């Protein structure tokens, strides 16, 4: 697939990295020479120096033949112009990344007017992810497959004696229709088998029917707690978006913001949520707002270090769960060790969305976990597949170690396959694979 990325900043770089690992043809356009040299050195993509919104440059590079064009430069307007230009030249799918909420709030209108397929905001996607987490505590990511028949949920294992240190075989009884497909521990990803052990603090990925999931999920979560009190630190785009998403749904939402003028405009924007005009990273102000009674504390300023320290402080003072926005992705795996329950990297959220575009047609859905180290995808199996009519245990010798078939969807039926089961034409399978295993696994399942 021929993919162009205008802007090699955090989003662009991350995206280029994920796509080049999948052996897509990627070209990155960037005006900053140092940035460009870094990309050129680290990634197997081609790099072009220039302004991504220039029509002459785009034409010269053949953007008109592109399958996907992504504008991820630092400036919203330039991104919109670049994406609209690419679409005008004939690019099949174009996406523009924006930061300004004005564009995002009316994104569908803007998309229609400029002919852009997707207007995406990393901040808004990150905010959505966090708001989901707050509304459904314990579940970090949830996604639907097979037109809603199957769900995938990533759950954080609480301190429940029922599962800690037990093997998968003992936790999930066969026939429950749920599969534990991936364990993430201390920044490492494990594709488990029956004898793998679950520990407190792991993030586990569960796949199955919604009903079964609700039941199994309780084994890992402390209790079915409801989130009542939330404190959000930082009234920037992400903080505001989270507050707006939770406004009215959660009993108490407090938004901390230091700048007074900003507080005023926030207060008019929000209905029930309270705006507190002070710094949330000081001990006294947190105690004053009863941090020990808070269910979720979110640190969402633009400063990673401040977010991390404030989240650790809040946890120390008694907040039940703490979430931090991390812009520098190298930090994300580390913060779990500090007791932070969830770290969200905005650029990863956007990259995941774009990655789905790249797989359209071949896969119906794709979810990327942990900065791209694991992919969960739904594959439609047609008559040309080389594995048809073979019991899975005979296929497994050819299958890479880091991959497993989590679920088979046949018509309305959903089941976790055993060694005797076969894949039939017309089935959809849900595949969980670590990043190195994706290609080889697809090779086994699909005819090239």
């Amino acid at each position, binding site marked *: 697939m021929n993919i162009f990325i205008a802007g090699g900043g955090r989003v662009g770089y991350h995206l280029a990295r994920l796509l*080049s*690992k999948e*052996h897509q*043809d*990627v*070209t990155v356009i960037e005006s900053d*020479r140092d940035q460009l040299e870094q990309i*050129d*050195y*680290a*990634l*197997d*993509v*081609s790099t072009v120096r220039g302004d991504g919104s220039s029509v002459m440059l785009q034409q010269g590079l053949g953007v008109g033949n592109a399958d996907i064009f992504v504008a991820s430069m630092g400036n919203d307007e330039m991104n919109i112009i670049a994406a609209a230009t690419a679409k005008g030249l004939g690019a099949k799918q174009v996406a523009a990344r924006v930061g300004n909420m004005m564009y995002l709030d009316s994104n569908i209108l803007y998309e229609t007017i400029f002919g852009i397929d997707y207007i995406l905001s990393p901040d808004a996607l990150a905010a959505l992810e966090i708001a989901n987490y707050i509304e459904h505590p314990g579940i970090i990511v949830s996604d639907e497959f097979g037109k809603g028949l199957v769900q995938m949920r990533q759950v954080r294992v609480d301190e429940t004696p029922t599962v800690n240190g037990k093997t998968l075989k003992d936790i999930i009884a066969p026939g429950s229709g749920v599969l534990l497909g991936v364990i993430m521990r201390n920044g490492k990803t494990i594709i488990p088998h029956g004898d793998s052990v679950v520990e407190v603090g792991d993030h586990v990925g569960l796949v199955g029917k919604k009903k079964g999931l609700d039941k199994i999920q309780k084994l890992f979560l402390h209790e079915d707690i409801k989130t009542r009190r939330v404190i959000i630190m930082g009234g920037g785009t992400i903080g505001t978006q989270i507050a707006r998403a939770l406004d009215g749904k959660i009993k108490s939402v407090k938004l901390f913001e230091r700048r007074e003028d900003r507080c005023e405009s926030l207060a008019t924007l929000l209905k029930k949520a309270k705006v507190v005009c002070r710094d949330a990273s000081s001990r006294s102000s947190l105690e004053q707002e009863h941090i020990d009674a808070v269910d979720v504390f979110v640190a969402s300023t633009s400063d990673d270090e401040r977010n991390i320290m404030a989240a650790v402080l809040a946890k120390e003072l008694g907040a039940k769960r703490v979430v931090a926005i991390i812009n520098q992705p190298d930090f994300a795996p580390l913060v779990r060790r500090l007791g932070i329950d969830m770290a969200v990297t905005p650029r990863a959220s956007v990259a995941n969305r774009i990655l789905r575009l790249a797989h359209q047609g071949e896969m119906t859905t794709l979810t990327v976990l942990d900065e791209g180290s694991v992919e969960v995808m739904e594959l439609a199996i047609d008559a040309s597949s080389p594995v048809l009519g073979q019991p899975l245990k005979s296929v497994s010798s050819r299958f890479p170690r880091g991959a497993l078939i989590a679920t088979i969807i046949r018509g309305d039926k959903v089941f976790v396959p055993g060694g005797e089961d076969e894949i039939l034409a017309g089935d959809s399978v849900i595949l969980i694979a670590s990043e190195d295993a994706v290609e080889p696994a697809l090779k086994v399942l699909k005819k090239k």
Partner: protein
Amino acid sequence: MNYRFLAKILGQLIAIFGLSFLPSLCWAAWFGEWDSFTAFLESIGVALLFGGVLYVLGRGAETRMYQRETLGLVGLGWLVLALVGAVPYVMSGTLGCVDAFFESMSGLTTTGSTVIVDIEAVDKSVLFWRSFSHWLGGMGVIVLFIAVLPYLGAGGKQLFKSEAPGPDPHGLSPRIRDTASILWKLYLTLTVVQTACLMLAGMSLYDALCHTFGTLATGGFSTRQASIAAFDSLAIEVIIIVFMVVAGTNFGLFFAMKHGDIWAVVKDSEWRYYLGILVLATVLISFNLMGFPANGVIDETPEAMQVETPDFTPGGAVRVASFQVVSVMTTTGYGTNNFEKWPPFSQLLLLMLMFVGGCAGSTGGGIKVVRIIVLCKMAYWRLENTFRPKTVRPIRMGDHLIDDGLQKRVATFLMLHMLVFIFGSLVMAGMGLPVMTAVTAVIATLNNIGPGLEFVGAGHDFHLVPDAGKVLLSFFMAMGRLELFSIVVMLHPGFWKHS
């Protein structure tokens, strides 16, 4: 430095390289040269064993490649491959160890300097290996390796850049593995076409293949003592001239032509300069060979200094001049006429052309046309700058702007090239070689030409050079082929340290 990773990759490289002895093995069987047959069989065994041991040592190493590993891999890789490539010469009893290393390096780096005194006395299968090593080294063993091995990723790109000649090889495809295989396919196609042409012109398959390898890689090894002159055929000379020009052209341009831009080559400004220099030099030398300007201006030239200039008809002059100019400037090194007998002006002009080389992204060696042009433009604008200090003059190559960083790199490259040349000439002279021999031996190896002048000229070979000199010259060949840095950097002690 990640030594284990280096060992793993080198092991694979050597093992794959060992398989390239197979064609020679077949020729040995065809010609019934059974001694050489066993020699090649043993060589394959040696390569597989050596490669296997290295691979086992480095098994399970992390695939982490940084600048050091890349440079180390390319630099060491070429030295080690030259060693392995020398094995057949030794095993077949053709050459001694040092001579074999020299010959092997000369082949791989597409230099074409030889130490073999009587070429026609050597087994044909061994001569085939000599030419085949040109062909492998021309497009790059490591580029081939990248096309074959899947897992190098972005590291492969760095390797590619270290091996492919020219200041900035443009990716033909966003993915380096595709780029590498596109280049090799192109190279293969050209090889088939030229071999067919040469066979139509009357060569045997064996000769046609060997000379195609020598031409397209801008190498210069022939199967005959008299080089191309042995065939005495205008058709063959024309074919070889055309393909030498092709080999000195940026291969990326052929790719563009294949994809609809038919005039890509003609539109390329570097190529126009390249052709311009070739034509101009041919014209000048042709006139000179026809006795214009008159030779022997100084009437009282001592008897000993008088050179006997052969007489050329106008047609004959153009024929030998064009062949020799193209052969020398593209750094091939084939000959149809002994240019040591030519007038001084022609000799010196050829010597200057040796530095120029082919275009960036071609198989030719030398400094490269694009660098020469950029340097000339830089000098010109600096000159203007002295009396119009405030004028801003960007330096362009066609439509491309040559930015400050690139200008500095080009200037640095020239400086390093000159330093190596001066140092090398001094050392060679210190070994007792006459001035002209010492200087041209270094020029011919550092620029990957092949023959120099005087005792290392077209009529002679390098066997007179002392052993230490041969080893040094072999290193110069590797420096020339890899554009200095990958080899020179290995002399820096900090390069090998762990931290």
